[in-house]
């Protein structure tokens, strides 16, 4: 993985033009000779000095243009200070090789210019250990992995239960063994649409009896949704049975989290906000009477919750419209955050220690969902500290931090950058891209799991040819 350094600074002689352009000059002060990977914001800013007849030239507008690659500069123009200095940052595009930025005097076509050249090395690709085709009904949406058992949520094919190292059937991540399939009930909706799952390990009863399955029915993003929670008894993993369900009128379920110690299931419910459901004891039939709390963090008409996560006694919710919230875990009343991602629609979330990460989705007022937001989980609520741009995508569809806190893994969809991104969290607020798998149809979700002492990513590959793709990330840990 040697990193090559290419240093090039190009300076053109000023042309023989009467007046100012003859005497204007630009020189590189800092930022050249950098080496990085795709999508990274270069740690050192590009700095130039403008001079007029050898003397620093203040108040000169400098234009910064990406001349090679599809990265971004910010700002695209800047004014020289008293010392004639101007600067910008460069966030790299998805191209491997050489990426360049040219600095020129704005509006003076034939004045001096300089070019910064950065070498962008390929990012290592995690080895894929297995690719399991999933029936194209439509395909695979999400995977829940625990104790070496993978529950594949395969939409209208229902739940596929795989031994990937813990089921006693000889399965492993590189050779999954199917234990069972089960198609959850569709009614009253037209299709089962198995979207996500959670295998409940009850510390009170010591049971591992229940699998909660979310059904995602038809809806209009930002307005309405449908779909219920279905409960399977998986006491016998080879013979699951559906035993209960929960319906929230006027809304449909999305992602889950559990407070297993308190036997509470938290569910994101899109326009229905967030619910807390008592899942203690024996679960049977209609669970409507077990609703403990329900909240709309952004208020009516401004709520469309994608996911929830319990961390350190606080419940966090990522709302597509109204941003990143902290909620009281018992009352679900918002206690911080909110209205803090106005530029993009939000997607999934993951909290780890004092920090959290949220994805972004689709197009909001022309801005694509190509960013991972980085938050500090402060006393008053989540505070945005930075963002990582992921070039060449339209949506960060899922993300997760490894249990040891060293890696952040994100799945991406749309455009040429779709796939799986692996970041090292040596500094949690500055994820460093260390691994990348490009998958042209996109990866819808990614789930991390430790099996046999190794870290694996279970990716849901989109159609055509939907598949569960399993990658070994062990070598990316520090």
């Amino acid at each position: 993985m040697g990193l090559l350094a290419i240093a090039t600074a190009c300076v053109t002689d000023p042309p023989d033009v009467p007046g100012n352009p003859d005497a204007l000059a630009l020189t590189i002060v800092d930022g050249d000779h950098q080496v990085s990977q795709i999508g990274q914001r270069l740690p050192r800013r590009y700095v130039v000095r403008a001079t007029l007849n050898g003397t620093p030239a203040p108040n000169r507008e400098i234009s910064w243009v990406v001349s090679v690659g599809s990265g971004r500069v910010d700002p695209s123009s800047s004014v020289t200070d008293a010392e004639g200095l101007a600067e910008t940052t460069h966030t790299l595009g998805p191209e491997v090789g050489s990426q360049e930025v040219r600095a020129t005097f704005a509006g003076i076509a034939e004045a001096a210019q300089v070019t910064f050249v950065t070498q962008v090395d390929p990012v290592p690709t995690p080895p894929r250990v297995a690719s399991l085709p999933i029936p194209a009904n439509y395909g695979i949406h999400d995977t829940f992995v625990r104790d070496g058992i993978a529950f594949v949520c395969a939409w209208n094919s229902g739940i596929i239960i795989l031994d990937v190292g813990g089921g006693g059937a000889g399965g492993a991540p590189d050779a999954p063994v199917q234990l069972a399939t089960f198609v959850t009930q569709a009614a009253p909706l037209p299709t089962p649409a198995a979207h996500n799952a959670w295998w409940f390990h009850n510390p009170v009863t010591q049971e591992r009896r229940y699998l909660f399955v979310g059904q995602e029915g038809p809806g209009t993003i930002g307005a309405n949704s449908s779909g219920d929670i279905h409960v399977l008894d998986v006491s016998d993993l080879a013979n699951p049975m559906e035993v209960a369900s929960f319906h929230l009128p006027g809304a449909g379920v999305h992602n889950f989290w559990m407070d297993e110690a308190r036997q509470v299931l938290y569910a994101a419910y899109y326009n229905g906000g967030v619910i807390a459901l008592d899942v203690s004891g024996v679960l049977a039939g209609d669970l409507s009477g077990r609703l403990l709390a329900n909240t709309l963090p952004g208020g009516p008409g401004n709520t469309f919750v994608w996911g929830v996560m319990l961390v350190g006694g606080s419940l966090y919710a990522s709302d597509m419209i109204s941003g990143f919230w902290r909620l009281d875990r018992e009352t679900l009343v918002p206690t911080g955050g909110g209205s803090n991602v106005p530029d993009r629609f939000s997607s999934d979330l993951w909290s780890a220690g004092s920090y959290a990460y949220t994805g972004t989705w689709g197009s909001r007022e022309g801005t694509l969902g190509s960013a991972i937001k980085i938050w500090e989980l402060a006393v008053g609520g989540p505070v945005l500290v930075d963002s990582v741009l992921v070039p060449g995508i339209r949506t960060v569809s899922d993300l997760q931090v490894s249990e040891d806190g060293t890696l952040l893994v994100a799945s991406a969809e749309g455009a040429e950058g779709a796939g799986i991104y692996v970041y090292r969290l040596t500094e949690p607020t500055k994820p460093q891209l260390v691994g990348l798998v490009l998958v042209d149809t996109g990866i819808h979700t990614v789930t991390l799991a430790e099996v046999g002492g190794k870290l694996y990513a279970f990716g849901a590959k989109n159609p055509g040819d939907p598949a569960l793709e399993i990658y070994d990330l062990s070598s990316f840990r520090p």
Partner: protein
Amino acid sequence: MRWMAGAIAVSTTVDPIPEGGRLTELRVVQPVVGGHGAFFNGKIWWKATLNFEGITIPEGELTPGGFGEGFVDRRHPHTYAHELMAGTTLPWGGGKWGVGLAAGKGFPSFGSDDPMGRDPVRFPVNHHWAQILERAVVTGQFRYRLVVLEGSLFNGDEPESPGDQPNLGRFGDSWSARLSVNPTNDLEFQTSTASVLAPEHPEAEGHRQRMFSIGGRLERSIAGRRSYAMAEWTRTSEADGAFIFHSFLGEGATNVGRHRLYYRFERTDRPEEERISAFRTPRPPLDDNILGITRWTIHTIGNRFAIWRPGNAVIEPFVEGSLIQVDKVGEGIFNTRDYYTKDRMWSLSLGMRVGLGMMGHRMGRYGLLVQPMGSQPGEHLHDQ
């Protein structure tokens, strides 16, 4: 037996396109070769149309508002085997009665004529609400006097590419029925209904579309000018009523010397889906959600000039323009002004139509619909 061939070379400018900006494209659209014929005094007929848009417009044709088969704001290319139909018609009682059977790849009995045979070059937004196309289909027909009743069975899945063929394993998962009335030879009315399973999912893992259409068409000489007018209204319900889309379209054309002047008004609802690029949506969709519904109100006006019409051929330069208003209907996160940067658009097309045997060709009509009441087998086997 008659043959036909044609193509349209067109330069189209649209402003704005998705995510803003203006785009001009020069393309060859609707390049077709086809023919139809009959045997045994018209009792056995065949019809074939080959379409080469898979070669000329693999990325689709710039068409603001257009959608279908994973394309948005572009019209998808048609399949190479656009129509391969054959059948039988058995009239009796002086043509007062008749039965017919048609089978092959083509249009199920639903809605109005395919836009390819109509005056405007620009396909309407309602193309996938007002027609069902490129399916493996069997259609039964019954006529009594002025009325023709049709029923079709077909596969629900739309083509995935120009070279794709209907999924025969799904044949019969969808059906349609149409009632047509011809009070006179130049006036017709139709009402039709269809139930199409999961057109966007090759494995039928989507929802059923329930479709309804009603319309009328007039073609006659008025004050010595060959004139045409049609109007239609459609309603499509998807996922047991979770989504409902309406469309109204009216168009007309008349000859003025060598000029053919035409106008179309359309107001059509379109689902907005997550996009994987400016002009594409995922196929199949990854869930059952939409981002909202937009309503497209479009005025299109055009003029074709027959600079040369030797025999059965035409060479017609044309100009066609559209003014478009896009409005959001109901709720959802899709915001037209944010996405397109404006809610009013325009398009302008300049081009040349060339054709042989294309005059009056009506796409997607078979058997008894082509054979007016009162005619003898073998007569009027060509489209009017």
